[in-house]
């Protein structure tokens, strides 16, 4: 029996084909929805820079608005520089808005605010960014284009109703290491494509440190789970502990609540999110 071999080869993409499909997907959605373009949050990281670049290649830069939404605790000059580089190269508009005053106002109005709870504050930042993005989208009659990748989405490594909130997410079926391949392919500078990922919810926040595994390994573990491999098989092939694979599998499964509409209990004839099943019809 031929076993699925978990190595970097399985994550290799037919890059021209993937690029074409993503560009077609974005263009098709915009045309059918009647939106005038897209608004994206651009952090300067590989996911958002790649998404913005693909949107610009697909729609033309004039229909793509990137919003940089830094705040004082985590502002990073390199990221700002990188976002500027990509905007210039791919010809889309980039605006920067400091969200610190909004964050301070929120924090000051929250009776239960606790400065030691950095996760709650970090999630608040992501949700404030979402509010800005949707305000711009409403005002400009555009849609919000998300930049979540498959690794983060499977792991639930995002803020619920925060950074994953979007109308479309063109990269959501690509693992992080695949996004890096695509980034290089479409001409993003290697320093952006290979930059360590950070959700930037607090200073020094690095994804791989928090997740406890390198993306090169995580992506292969997730790929194995996607292909119905057992945790033992995956651990054996990748020479990692079964515990690590089981922890990742558990996390993937328990985070389903972040990927769906809120759960309700069935009371009616047809129920939203359950058996009320409609296609996307945007015309």
């Amino acid at each position: 029996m031929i076993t699925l071999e978990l190595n970097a080869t399985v994550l290799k993409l037919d890059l021209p084909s993937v690029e074409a499909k993503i560009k077609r997907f974005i263009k098709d959605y915009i045309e059918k929805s009647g939106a005038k373009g897209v608004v994206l949050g651009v952090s300067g990281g590989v996911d958002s820079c790649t998404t913005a670049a693909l949107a610009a290649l697909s729609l033309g830069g004039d229909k793509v608005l990137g919003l940089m939404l830094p705040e004082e605790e985590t502002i990073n000059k390199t990221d700002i520089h990188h976002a500027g580089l990509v905007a210039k190269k791919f010809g889309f508009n980039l605006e920067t808005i400091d969200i610190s005053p909004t964050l301070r106002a929120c924090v000051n109005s929250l009776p239960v605010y606790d400065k030691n709870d950095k996760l709650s504050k970090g999630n608040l930042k992501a949700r404030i960014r979402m509010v800005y993005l949707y305000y711009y989208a409403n005002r400009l009659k555009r849609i919000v284009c998300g930049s979540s990748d498959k690794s983060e989405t499977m792991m639930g490594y995002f803020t619920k109703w925060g950074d994953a909130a979007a109308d479309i997410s063109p990269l959501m079926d690509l693992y992080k290491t695949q996004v890096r391949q695509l980034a290089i392919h479409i001409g993003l500078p290697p320093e952006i494509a290979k930059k360590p990922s950070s959700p930037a919810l607090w200073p020094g926040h690095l994804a791989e440190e928090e997740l406890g595994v390198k993306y090169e390994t995580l992506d292969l573990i997730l790929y194995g789970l996607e292909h119905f491999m057992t945790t033992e098989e995956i651990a054996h092939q990748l020479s990692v502990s079964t515990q690590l694979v089981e922890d990742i599998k558990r996390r993937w499964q328990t985070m389903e609540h972040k990927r769906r509409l809120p759960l309700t209990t069935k009371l009616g004839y047809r129920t939203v999110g359950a058996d009320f099943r409609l296609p996307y019809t945007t015309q």
Partner: protein
Amino acid sequence: MLEEVNIALSQISCRIGDKKYNLNKMKEQIKQARENGANLVIFPELALTGYTLRDLVYESAEPIPGPSTNLLTEVAKKENIHIVLGMVEQSEKASGVLYNTSVLLSPKGFVGKYQKMYLPTHSVFEEKRYFRPGYNLPVFETAVGKLGLIICYDVFFPETVRLLRLKGAQLIICISASPAVRRKFFETLTVARAIENTVFLAYVNLVGIENGLQFWGGSRLIAPNGSIISQAKYDDDDLVMGKISYADLKRTETFVPTLRDLRPELFASLKEQLENL
């Protein structure tokens, strides 16, 4: 019956649930096909409504013959052309019973229909949730040849085309709504079905993006020796013509005599094994 037939493969993208729009698009394509000299024009699976209907399937269904096929029959008469298309069929006897159906119309009127037997219900496909499988594989004797109809996933089951061929079909018409990740399967299997049965095969696939699924088009007309007579574009609307000559069947049947060499005793064993899978 014509010995040589001009076939138009019309791979269109559809608006989900918008029969009026899709019908108008088909009428334009039929006109174009006729101008190109076509005797037969073929549209994709569920071309009347788009493929990813989900619950809209219930409001999109209609009897066959019914309003849409009546309208297209008038077009077939006016343009003097045969038409094959896919649509959701509603049973006349039980309104909740639906079929994924391929319809054949001619300049003389409604000819017949085929109800899809193999309904994919895995991965992104959910056809068994909505459709009842068909039970018949008819062959239709028409002015453009003896035609057998199948739909998409049916092509994964060699017995469908085999049976149609044994019933005398000369041209298999496989209409399809295949998303991009499955292209390799279909490009292999459509050629295989033509070769192993020494039969012409016209494959017409949907294009466009529905619910995030990108249908890849790539419709093709395949000769009984497996060669590609004509091929449509990938990923875009297209209308391509191809000519077939039924005289080629005899030459191929002699060169690769698969029908002569069939072993009937294996079929009983197949049945027995399958029942105990």
